């Protein structure tokens, strides 16, 4: 018992020595007086250096279209198409939220509306995975215009013609 009490007392003493609470009670040093203002010395002109070349963002080249045979599409290809569908859908959703309804009309009219030709001049980005052709139409990863089936103000069936680039065939991607 005496040994245990002695051990505890020794540990407490050791802790007190290590903690050294009396040092915390010392006042902090007084702040140093402000330094006197120094006279600014003009910097010598920097030697002229050749201008750095302008940094232009390098966009990755467009991904090549997936193959033309549905049965030979890789998992990555199919995921890429699904992502493209998702992105168009999200863009339409953003538009519908802002303008209280989907854009209407032909693909070109809908694309123009997404890009700013709308009542609020809301300009959305081209959905990743899609491109715009010369006719101003938003196109799927194969370069075929998306088909927008306008069901209601908030519901748009979205259809990609798929690898055969013909709409309403078995290889279409539809959401």
């Amino acid at each position: 018992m005496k040994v245990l009490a002695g051990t505890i007392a020794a540990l407490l003493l050791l802790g007190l020595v290590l903690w050294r609470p009396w040092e915390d009670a010392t006042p902090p040093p007084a702040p140093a007086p402000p330094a006197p203002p120094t006279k600014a010395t003009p910097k010598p002109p920097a030697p002229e250096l050749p201008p750095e070349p302008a940094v232009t963002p390098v966009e990755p080249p467009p991904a090549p279209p997936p193959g033309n045979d549905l049965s030979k599409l890789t998992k990555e290809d199919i995921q890429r198409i699904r992502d493209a569908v998702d992105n168009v859908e999200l863009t339409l959703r953003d538009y519908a939220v802002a303008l209280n309804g989907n854009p209407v009309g032909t693909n070109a009219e809908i694309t123009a509306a997404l890009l700013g030709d709308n009542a609020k001049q809301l300009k959305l980005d081209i959905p990743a995975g899609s491109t715009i052709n010369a006719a101003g139409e938003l196109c799927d990863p194969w370069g075929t215009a998306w088909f927008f089936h306008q069901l209601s103000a908030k519901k748009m069936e979205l259809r990609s013609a798929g690898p055969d680039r013909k709409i309403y065939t078995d290889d279409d991607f539809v959401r």
Partner: protein
Amino acid sequence: MSTIDQDRARLLRSRRDFLRTIGGAAMGSAVISTTLRDFRLINSALAQGNGVGGAFTDYKALVCIFLNGGNDANNLIIPKGAQHANYAAIRQNLTIPESLALAITPLNNDGNQYGFHPVCPQLQSLFQAGKLATLFNVGPLLFPTSRVQYQKKLVALPPQLFSHSDQVTHWQTSIPDQPPRTGWGGRVADYLHPYQNELLQDPVSRAKIALCTSISGANTFEVGNSVQQFHVSTSGAVTLSGTSTAREAVVRNIAKLSQSNLQADAYGDVIDNAIAAGATLNSALTDTQTGWTWNTPFPSGSLGDQLKMVARIIAGRNKLQVKRQIFFVSAGGYDTHTSQMGAGDDALTGTHAGLLGTLSQAIGAFQAAIEQIAADTTKPGVGDPALANSVVGFTTSDFGRTFPTNGQGSDHGWGSHHLIFGGNGNPTTGAVIGKKTYGTFPVLQVNGPDDTSTGRWIPTTSVDEYSATMAKWFGVDAAHLPVVFPNLGRFANPDLGFMRV
């Protein structure tokens, strides 16, 4: 006896009546809930003639045929002669050969020649008989709109053009710029239902069913502020499943129980009225069905069955004591993005040809049925020669379709051609001034003066003008037309002239 005591005594009497009548109150709630499910409880007590004013002395019926999905009327009415070359060049595989189009010879001359789709001989016959007219390029508009105005966004347009559900609503409400609350048929009914019967407060003699009747379920067209649509199936009014006379009496007695809550009381009345109206309608149908064989058979399928039911209800109109009726029927499948034509782009087969063929047969059979009912004076209260000139049908649809082919069909358009039929065909007395074309046929040119940009016709006649012309014939006076059609004043022709008022 104090008022409270009187109320208590009345309540006790009601309880005694109730217990004496049904003997088992436990089944009450279950039966009521079945009633709610079975009846939809659409018909309104208000719709049964608690109005004021003079009564109609004649009978008239309007029958709306809605073609769900957007009918490609470019192939319903086909240009012949010089215009056919333009038509064929743009429609390509959707082309109906000129030699196959069923020629019509309108009394008026707009410089073009026309024919119906080859599967529509009934429409051709009705047109030539002066019982059918066509209205070209009609659609929902907020203001008269030209191509330049459309492209430069110079005038407001109906919202969500080219979308199915929105265009259906626009057609049926005729107020595209307001939230859809009522349909134009319902608003006509609101105005006219007080005139259904001169003994309007008499529960025995007043009209037995609502002015608006749908054979095709709920619709916006027949929704009024006070008048609601009465739903009928192709077999008649919906009744309690597995009912007997005793069970029906039980339900009606429960419904008629006095309730301390006014809403519950009114609700009970509605249930009771619904059951009564259904029973009366079925009774009227049974009376007219006995020994009844249609001279011209209706086509098999939904549209034929729906129009047959309309004809049967019209045959029973006297028992129902109605003077004005608005009917709604519909046919689906017109959203022909693909498979519009048959194999090998056969103009005589395929989805669209099938739909048009059925439409033509159904309209032909319906018109024949009305004439048969009118001529049959052997059945008391059924036949009446005047009836042949009292029933008018008309087509409506979401929109027209693109004029160019998409390869397999056509896509969503805007303006479209429609049909109005009925009447006796007499050129001086017929209800429909038939054998004529109305409106302006579009210039068949992509990027032409009538095109938005890809063969979607910009309507040259508004739905308001189309609908108001029929509402005027039906009995809405000129002072109330702007109430029913608030935007009518924006357009040039509140009466297009195809109805004889």
